[in-house]
């Protein structure tokens, strides 16, 4: 019976369960539940966002691995930075990331998040995402197909299960470093303004 799709499912789940951990039992259990349930913030920054709908709907069905979308940053575990991100988007990403509750993870898609990709000489996009936010996992390609995204998710899940995915702690410990880099491109006021007449202020439209 183990042919085709069921074989694939078995392989993916086997990948998840194969870690050899050195944690105590409470940590192991907590990480096991965190690994089996991943809420992904439905937020697309660049062209890579187009690969996310097929990943989460019937064709590739990420929900079979416990991965599903979350509508708000308060409930999300993973934020996907899907491709190039302009300064204006970066403000929103930082704000969204800081609204998420710990533990939280960042998945970066595409070449643009690694080194700028085809936007390497653009005047209004950032080149290395790692300077501004801690990244747990890169999925490269331009753009990565849903299979690669699932692969990236499984790698993140493995790291969570082993207790190694700790980028959120890295962000807290090195906050000054990240903040300095953020301020270097966005100015003193990093968060977008949400005033009543927001369109008059910078960070607005």
């Amino acid at each position, binding site marked *: 019976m183990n042919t085709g799709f069921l074989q694939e499912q078995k392989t993916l789940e086997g990948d998840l369960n194969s870690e050899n951990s050195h944690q105590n039992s409470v940590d192991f259990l907590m990480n096991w539940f965190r690994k089996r349930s991943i809420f992904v913030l439905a937020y697309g920054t660049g062209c890579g966002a187009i690969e996310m709908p097929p990943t989460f709907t019937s064709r590739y069905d990420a929900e079979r691995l416990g991965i599903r979308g979350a*509508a708000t940053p308060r*409930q999300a575990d993973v934020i996907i930075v899907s491709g190039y991100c302009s300064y204006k988007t970066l403000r929103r990403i930082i704000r969204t990331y800081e609204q998420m*509750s710990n533990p939280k993870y960042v998945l970066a898609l595409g070449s643009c998040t690694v080194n700028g990709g085809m936007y390497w000489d653009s005047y209004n996009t950032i080149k290395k995402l790692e300077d501004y936010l801690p990244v747990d996992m890169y999925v490269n390609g331009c753009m990565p197909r849903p299979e690669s995204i699932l692969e990236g998710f499984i790698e993140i899940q493995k790291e969570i299960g082993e207790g190694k995915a700790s980028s959120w702690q890295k962000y807290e410990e090195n906050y000054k470093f990240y903040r300095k880099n953020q301020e270097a491109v966005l100015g003193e006021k990093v968060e977008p303004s949400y005033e009543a007449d927001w369109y008059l202020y910078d960070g607005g439209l």
Partner: protein
Amino acid sequence: MILLDSLLMFIIAYGTGFLYYGLYRNITARFQRRYGPPVWQSFFDSIKFFTKEDSTSHGWMFYLGPIIMMSGAIMTLIFIPFFSSGESFVGFSKYGNLFVVLYLLVLGPLGNALGVGAAGNPFGAMGITRGLSRLFAMELPFYIAVIAIMSLSGSSDIATISSTQTTLNAIAYPLLFIAAMFSFIGMMGQAPFDVVGAPVEVYSGPATEFSGKFLALLMSQSAIFTFAKLVLMVHLFLGGADGFVELLSKTFLLFLFVIAFGSMYGRFKTPQSIDFLLKVPTVIAVVGLILATWSS
């Protein structure tokens, strides 16, 4: 003894509620030609949220909201006996009758409204407005049907109502059953009346601002509350149950019907769903009430 009984009821409802929600996700996935998550996925989700940190604070009412909802769900559960007869799994049901349960059914939405109102999230407020206005429309046909059943059985005790049915109330009074089912589908948050937490439209609706342990509490209360409502429906219309096999199969069949119905239909707009509930099921319930009193 009564506390131990209630604790057992709580544990069973907790497990069964999450199992049903997992099955719901799995079955919906099969309807959509997907493989779907594992059966215990909803349980995994809730435990995961219990292990997350909370970073939000919106005053004490925000924290009390989920707790009021949870206590509403647990109280509803322990006032409904699991079986039509017998001394076990009755909880506090001999101290309160159907009226108490009908009151307690609205405690959850009330707590939700208070908590979400304190958070001030616009999407939450939108969800709450939709939820409360739908609640008014939903209650009318449901109450007419339930009160008719109560007067026809001559008792407001849930166990008596369920054990005195010679033919099932659903078959003896089909119009009342249909009217109550429309409201019940709304109470279970299923399409076409799923305007409250409408995904895509208002994000997560009332739950938008809740994170971590509070969201986990909300998920647990919804699992428990779902099971309590299913047991209530089984008692009122489907002849109750005498053992766990009968109880679980009847509640699961009812649940399956509700989610199958929900998967088939799209979503009404808020005014449409209120209009529909106030017109169609209410008229059906009134006609059913007249016919039932006529024939008896």
